[in-house]
């Protein structure tokens, strides 16, 4: 039985900024097409940096990173990034925001329109196509941001804590929508988050990172079956895994507890 080649592969990778200490050290990690991998860990463990390395936003110092079996230097085209902030252009309408990446690559207007219509429908924002970002809620802005990334029809989607600033109900809702979209589109995802519950709900694999230097401390496979829905959150299987991962995260948390003055 032959494995499909990994879409992302790190081999003993090290990253530092300038002359500083290593932000990431000895990272060996690979992801197969179709996986949903979450990166979780304490502040400063380099999980966002890992994502930025994959995106080609910053170069590697040591070791190897290949994407689609090409080096990042060649920048594979079908890679999309969703930032922590919605990162919308405030002077453009929702529609124009969604199609902006297509505009940059000079996609013909009719194709652009068709793809944008499709994405507007996918994230349920058709009635808001002519609105400006400032007229939208936080959750709606994030939907626009995701729709924009998906217009690139990526095979690799990188998400840097996209729902961190949202309230819990909106976050849960968007988690479910994200999985529903993935059912239809089959991209591979790397997802940075601070929320264990979110990581367990979304991923088939969770990478727990430790800090100083950033390194992989644990890898957890989440074998809950897809499709996962709001109901999944009520199952004991799900809750047990959330508890397990929380304990693992606790074990790499280096910040000492604050003791009341003796």
């Amino acid at each position, binding site marked *: 039985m032959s494995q499909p080649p990994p879409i992302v592969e790190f081999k003993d990778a090290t990253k530092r900024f300038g002359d500083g200490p290593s932000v990431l050290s000895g990272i060996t990690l690979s992801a197969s097409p179709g996986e949903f991998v979450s990166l979780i860990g304490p502040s400063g463990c380099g999980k966002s940096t890992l994502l930025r390395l994959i995106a080609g936003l910053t170069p590697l110092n040591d070791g190897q990173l290949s994407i689609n079996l090409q080096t990042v230097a060649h920048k594979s085209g079908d890679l999309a990034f969703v930032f922590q902030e919605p990162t919308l*252009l405030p002077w453009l309408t929702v529609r124009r925001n969604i199609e902006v990446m297509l505009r940059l690559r000079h996609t013909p207007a009719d194709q652009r329109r068709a793809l944008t219509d499709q994405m507007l429908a996918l994230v349920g924002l058709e009635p808001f196509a002519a609105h400006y970002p400032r007229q939208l809620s936080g959750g709606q802005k994030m939907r626009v941001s995701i729709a924009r990334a998906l217009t690139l029809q990526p095979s690799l989607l990188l998400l840097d804590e996209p729902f961190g600033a949202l309230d819990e109900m909106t976050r849960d809702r968007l988690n479910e929508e994200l999985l529903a979209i993935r059912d239809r589109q089959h991209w591979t995802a790397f997802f940075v988050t601070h929320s264990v519950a979110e990581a367990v709900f979304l991923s088939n694999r969770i990478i727990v990172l430790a800090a100083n230097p950033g390194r992989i401390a644990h890898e957890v496979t989440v074998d809950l079956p897809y499709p996962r829905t709001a109901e999944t959150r009520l199952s004991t299987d799900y809750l047990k895994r959330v508890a397990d991962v929380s304990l693992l995260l606790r074990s790499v948390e280096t910040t000492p507890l604050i003791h009341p003055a003796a």
Partner: protein
Amino acid sequence: MNRRLLTILLPVLVGALMIVLWYIFRLHVLDTDRRFLLPAPDAILRALIEKAPTLWSATLNTATGALLGFGLAVALSFTLALGLSLSPLIRAGFYPYLMMLQLTPIIVLAPILILWVGPGLKSVVIITFLICFFPLVVNTTQGLISTDRNLVELFRMGRASRLQEIFLLRVPSALPYFFTGLRIAATLAPIGAIVGDAYAGNSAGGQGGLGFLTIIYSAQFQLPALFATAAVGCLLGFVFAGTVVALSWFALHHWHDSYQRKDL
């Protein structure tokens, strides 16, 4: 009371109050032999009507100079700002000389300009340009380098070309700054043209502007006409500033926070 009505009514009331105070000051504070120094508003109005043809042609001349100088400043400052936005080193190299341009007194430049291009519209345009240029260049440059880092990163990831990054991202996001500079420059342009006209204008028949009239009227001690000239210059400033405020509204009100409706 209706808030909207109040915002119209209040300025009118304040204006009326000031005219009343003007008359009271003139009639009850000033000695009779010094009253001529502060002409009554009705005298100014009469001068305005009496000198209307002269004032009108002078206003047209000044407006032409102001508009040309202002337009030139907008075009050149925008081009220079694009260049300055490219690197901090370029900015460091040019800023001292931009400051020099701004700090050199116009009174000193005027005779030089007269020698170089002769008195008249050209000199007026150049002086207006010099006065408007600095706030435009500084604000536009600041806007072009203040683009949201995340948006720049988004564009880089989308492999935007340098031109796409400038014209689809940096220029639109600099618009609020550009309009701040434009508002300042719009109020300065008529002043620049009037000052330029006073020092380097052409006095030949029909070519003088409001600055030239100022010199004539003050030499002839025609105080009501002098006040009328000031009023017309002020009005010209309002037209310039008002146009820019309207343009800024058209460009920004859809999306910029400064036009966000505040519900009280």
